């Protein structure tokens, strides 16, 4: 093994350890580290495994309506497969997998960047991608995070496509799978691939026969989407209709998350842009253009045109940050090369440059940690609540429908395996949550209201004094059967 390869392997391990730590951040000191989206996905995955098919009764509301062709079915199939194959408890996988997935993203970014001389830098800055409860991110085990793996993966395949045909079916396979996992990410990746291929086809000086695989790929990208469209036409049609006439919720604007990446990384992004432009070439333009367009889309398009649901723009920040991480990596690598070139006649020049780079990386890491420290996360449930839910799952009849805080209901369902009257995530269902809170605060006096809604279980933080309810455990009330 060459000495340089050894050093590179050591640094890669350190970067992977950083990735694992970054993904751990919102989970520090908290035993049930799931964001509301993660609870929701866990509920769907559990239901999919319980029924053994992709069309299943809604895991939260029971048989009232069926989930047919869920847009993130691919993710549930993947997570379900992991749960079955590892035989592990969901809680263990929930802690472990964000770290593993971010590690994979960083490693695939390394593999792509390595060919162009900035593998380690690309891997390092990929671990900096921010996670918030608004637009999610790699610290959460959610479909959009899993989808991020496909960006560097497809870039590697595209590079290979310049030489032969074999990556073509792999790109199609990846895109088709990504449409099943997270459609929005697939659209964003499709856009990046189209830009890349257009630049390659128009500006590359490759011989004509080498352009043919790329041209085929460009033409076939819509086919991967077509496959999912044919599988799930009603959903795709509905999504397009939703995007065209989205209901706008009173969501506060997102503070630009790029600031959380730290000023050093942002400076490196700008430097990277500069170097890419100065060096020119179709490959460099193919990295700059989609980044700029996506940045414009998530930051300005929303403000000016406000078309489509907010979630579209919020998730978009993740793709922007991933592409920016690659560009920052390029910027840092160019700094390194320039520095080494500048000091090449001086004996200690290389050492000085590497020391300076180490300082830059160390400060950017400190700034990144600071960015994470400023981010506010929440705990959906505490330890006693978890034990309450486990007990409910074990002791109460399977058919129960529970009334509880709609925001806590997301975690209630996967733990207990029971249905809830309603589950909502902020800012949805504010009025409904207030109504339920008022009903409980008044002691849940109206038995007929419960019966009309088939509710036979209440998890209430308020003491309930309705004689038709039996308090079987702290906060747990069951509706007495008629005549009981």
């Amino acid at each position: 093994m060459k000495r340089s390869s050894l050093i590179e392997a050591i640094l890669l391990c350190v970067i992977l350890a950083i990735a694992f730590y970054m993904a751990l951040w919102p989970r520090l000191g908290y035993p049930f580290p799931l964001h509301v989206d993660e609870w929701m996905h866990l509920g769907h995955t559990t239901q999919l495994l319980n029924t053994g098919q992709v069309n299943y009764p809604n895991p939260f509301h029971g048989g009232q309506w069926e989930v047919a062709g869920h847009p993130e079915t691919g993710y549930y199939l993947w997570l379900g497969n992991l749960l079955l194959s590892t035989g592990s408890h969901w809680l263990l996988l929930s802690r472990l997998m964000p770290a593993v997935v971010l590690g994979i993203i960083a490693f695939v970014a390394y593999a792509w960047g390595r060919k162009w001389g900035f593998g380690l830098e690309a891997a390092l800055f990929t671990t900096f991608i921010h996670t918030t409860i608004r637009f999610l991110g790699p610290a959460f085990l959610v479909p959009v995070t899993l989808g991020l793996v496909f960006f560097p993966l497809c870039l590697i395949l595209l590079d290979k496509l310049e030489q032969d045909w074999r990556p073509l079916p792999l790109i199609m396979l990846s895109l088709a799978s990504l449409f099943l996992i997270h459609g929005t990410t697939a659209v964003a990746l499709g856009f990046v691939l189209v830009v890349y291929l257009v630049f390659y086809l128009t500006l590359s000086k490759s011989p004509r026969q080498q352009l043919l695989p790329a041209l085929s790929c460009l033409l076939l990208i819509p086919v991967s989407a077509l496959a999912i469209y044919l599988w799930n036409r009603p959903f795709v049609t509905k999504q397009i209709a939703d995007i065209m006439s989205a209901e706008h919720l009173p969501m506060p604007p997102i503070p630009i998350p790029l600031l959380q990446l730290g000023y050093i990384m942002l400076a490196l992004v700008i430097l990277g842009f500069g170097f890419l432009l100065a060096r020119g070439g179709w490959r460099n333009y193919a990295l700059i253009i989609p980044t700029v367009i996506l940045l414009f889309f998530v930051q300005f398009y929303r403000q000016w045109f406000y078309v489509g649901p907010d979630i579209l723009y919020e998730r978009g920040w993740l793709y922007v940050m991933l592409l920016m991480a690659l560009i920052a990596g390029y910027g840092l690598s160019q700094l390194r090369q320039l520095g080494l070139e500048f000091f090449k006649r001086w004996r200690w020049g290389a050492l000085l440059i590497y020391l300076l780079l180490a300082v830059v990386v160390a400060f950017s890491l400190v700034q990144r940690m600071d960015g994470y420290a400023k981010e506010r996360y929440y705990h959906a449930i505490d330890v006693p609540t978890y034990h309450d839910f486990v007990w409910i799952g074990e002791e109460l009849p399977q058919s129960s429908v529970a009334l509880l805080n709609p925001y806590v209901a997301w975690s209630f369902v996967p733990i207990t395996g029971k249905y809830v009257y309603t589950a909502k995530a902020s800012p949805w269902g504010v009025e409904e949550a207030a109504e339920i809170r008022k009903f409980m605060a008044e002691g849940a006096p109206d038995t007929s209201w419960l019966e009309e809604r088939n509710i036979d279980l209440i998890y209430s933080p308020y003491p309930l004094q309705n004689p038709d309810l039996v308090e079987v455990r702290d906060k747990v009330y069951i509706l007495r059967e008629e005549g009981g």
Partner: protein
Amino acid sequence: MDLLVVIVVSLALVPLAVLGGGPVSLALGLIFVLFFPGYTLIAALFPKRGDLDGVQRLALSFGLSIAVVPLIGLILNYTPWGIGLYPVLVSVLVFIFVMAGVAWYRRRRLPQEQRFELRFHPRLSQFWGRQNRWDRVLIGLLVVAIIGAIGMLVYVTQTPKVEERFTEFYILGPEGKAENYPGVLVLGEEAKVTVGIVNREQEVTEYNVKILIEGQKVEEVGAIALAHEEKWEQEVSFAPTEVGEKQKVEFQLYKGGGSKAYQALNLWIDVVGSQ
């Protein structure tokens, strides 16, 4: 060699996954889902040594595994077996076997020197002996870095110890389930419920349980000393002493000899006179 390892490890996983749980099952399961499908697919498509470098092969193996597994699951959905433990294991296994078979066949058709193969150093001492001092230091550092990265991953999986102190207190119906609680009683009739306590106070704790009907104590159980995380369940009975509707039966839990109830549960009963 590499394909054989893939097949052997995949086969080894099946009984572990069926039996469920454990760190070995977790590690093998992760490789089975996150690496092998993509690795064998890449091996089948790129059988030549120079097709891809080692790092790209590894990266594509991880990424393509994530792409392949959901599609296998979707295909399973349209089979009579559906998506369950055995169908999932068998289908991924079949995919790995088929791809490994194709890879083996395509490699066999290539001249020996062009075939992709993983090279292992059969004798560690020989390998170590060939390194100079600096390289040995670097290899040592690499081992430390690998251990560090794995250590960080293990740290991630460890559930943090939360020193939250609380007690689980509950009542179950006569059959030991949370149903059929006493509702209507005849005067003098005994009602039965199971009372349960789980101590999560992080220390040995002593409890008492009192049962009150309309504020009047009718039964007391205790003292019950429980170690941390110890569970106690016992059937207790009570008999109302007066006829009347909507009488409140209260189960009070006292902790550590305290005079104020620590927790209280309640149910209502109607008591009718005997015929």
